[in-house]
């Protein structure tokens, strides 16, 4: 392991200093060291939008704090849920008196900590409602969607919820927009190499050279099949098929497409994959209207890629089009 760190146990703390120093226009610290919120004046009278999760997925989660996106974020250790107190503090930081939407991913730790934090916030008189992202089709069958993990599709959920909040929607409207976004979203990942948590010093799992882990999770969770590494065109076909059939997406649908690298994959290869995905979708009569390609939701230095599709209705299309500004995603209102 050869990395840009100091004490392996302090990577999260150390990196937060850098985020704050680099983006005083976007991010501000709060009374909780593991909670960041949007910089600048906290406009009153709108719903707060919050997420939280383990570190190591940057720019997720804190990179999506900003205009038209998240108001605050609870930050966990690498690949570990933030504490209930952190979520609670994030709720307080985002609260403007009209309630807080907590939009997070379906992991045991996050579920427990959010649940407890919601109770703590209730004692402060802060109403929190939640949406739990479960877009990863590989993590459980379609008959048990509540067991599925949340992955890169969370970004589209945040975008929709954040935009709805900025439009002035009330808590139920923001929650409905975010819930609809994630309900219309499906993702799948392919892993091509393992990753190493600095404090462990060695990978927790292995992917052999020449093999790919289809359906890998964002922490290296085993997928649905280990296969010989296929050409990108076949990877794309496999991913598209799996996702499209799951919702299902069909002829005439407009979609948002997000191709995210898992960390180490060269950006040119993400675009190479996108090219195939775009063509496969159009062949099925599905039109990509919003396209995101890049390292949006990573797993440290894992080699691999994830594909996310969101079926658009008029509202979702509008919400994804609204301006946003953050480290991870900037949408200019052209």
């Amino acid at each position, binding site marked *: 392991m050869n990395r840009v760190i100091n004490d392996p146990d302090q990577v999260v703390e150390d990196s937060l200093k850098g985020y704050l120093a680099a983006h005083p226009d976007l991010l501000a610290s709060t009374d909780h060291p593991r909670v960041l919120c949007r910089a600048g004046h906290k406009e009153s009278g709108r719903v707060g939008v919050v997420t939280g999760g383990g570190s190591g997925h940057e720019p997720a989660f804190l990179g999506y704090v900003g205009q038209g996106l998240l108001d605050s974020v609870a930050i966990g*250790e690498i690949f570990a*849920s933030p504490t209930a107190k*952190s979520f609670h503090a994030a709720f307080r930081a985002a609260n403007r008196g009209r309630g807080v939407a907590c939009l997070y991913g379906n992991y045991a730790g996050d579920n427990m900590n959010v649940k*407890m934090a919601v109770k703590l916030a209730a004692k402060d008189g802060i109403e929190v409602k939640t949406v739990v992202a479960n877009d990863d089709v590989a993590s459980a069958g379609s008959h048990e969607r509540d067991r599925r993990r949340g992955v890169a599709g969370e970004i589209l959920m945040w975008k929709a919820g954040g935009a709805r909040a900025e439009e002035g929607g009330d808590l139920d409207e923001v929650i409905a927009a975010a819930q609809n976004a994630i309900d219309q979203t499906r993702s799948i990942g392919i892993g091509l190499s393992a990753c190493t948590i600095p404090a*462990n010093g060695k990978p*927790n799992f292995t992917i052999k050279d020449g093999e790919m882990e289809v359906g890998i999770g964002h922490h290296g969770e*085993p997928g649905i099949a280990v296969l010989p590494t296929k050409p990108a065109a076949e990877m794309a076909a496999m991913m598209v098929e799996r996702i499209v059939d799951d919702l299902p997406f069909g002829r005439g649908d407009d979609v948002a497409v997000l191709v995210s690298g898992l960390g180490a994959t060269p950006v040119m290869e993400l675009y190479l994959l996108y090219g195939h995905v775009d063509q496969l979708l159009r062949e099925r009569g599905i039109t990509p209207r919003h396209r995101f390609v890049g390292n949006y939701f990573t797993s440290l230095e894992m080699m691999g890629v994830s594909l996310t599709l969101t079926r658009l209705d008029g509202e979702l299309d509008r919400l994804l089009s609204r301006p946003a500004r953050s480290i991870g995603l900037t949408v200019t209102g052209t």
Partner: protein
Amino acid sequence: MDSFSQQAAGPIVLDMVAAIVREQGFLGEIDGKIGDGDHGINMSKGFRLAGERLSGHAFGLAQGFATLGDTLLSDIGGSMGPLYGTFFTEMAETLEGADRIDAGRFAAMLRAGRETIVDLGGAKVGDKTLVDALIPAEAAFNAARERHEGFADCLLAMKQAAAAGLESTRDMVAKIGRASRLGERSRGTLDAGAASCSLLLATLADGLLREMRREHSLNAPEGASP
């Protein structure tokens, strides 16, 4: 010898801290076989921190558990923070205000702790989690009480059942948590959380037995000691 002083039992929490820190390597090792190997690190980080916060103060068992629960909740994320955090927090609440703790109150404490873990984590016996140590331990304590055994024997029954519960996880297939993804491959290894749970309950039982013997010898009529 059917109750103990809530205040005098406080230092037992430091025994529990010491036990977790001492067994960090073992807990990490068994988690590493079917999980991600961090159970020892997670637990000892939280327990050590709680120990630091308690040391230098006078505290009873309630206060000790409260600090432990609070520290786990505040500083340890993942699943262990909330599970063990609320476990100790809820147990602390049932002890609060009590001067002496008898078997009845201890049973109430165990029930509160077990309920919050099951409520929060949703694990059942047989899922290969810490619940496989906790539930049999509580049941054994209650069964001993129903047999009208003394508090000390109830504690011994609890400790033995926890150890047996831990051992029972060896032949289980994990149904919940990180190891559940391994399916059959998870069989043949002890569960890390069950190991820490058994260790904590044993350390608590041993400490209380020692404390009750100490109180007993202090209160015994002069000359009755050998």
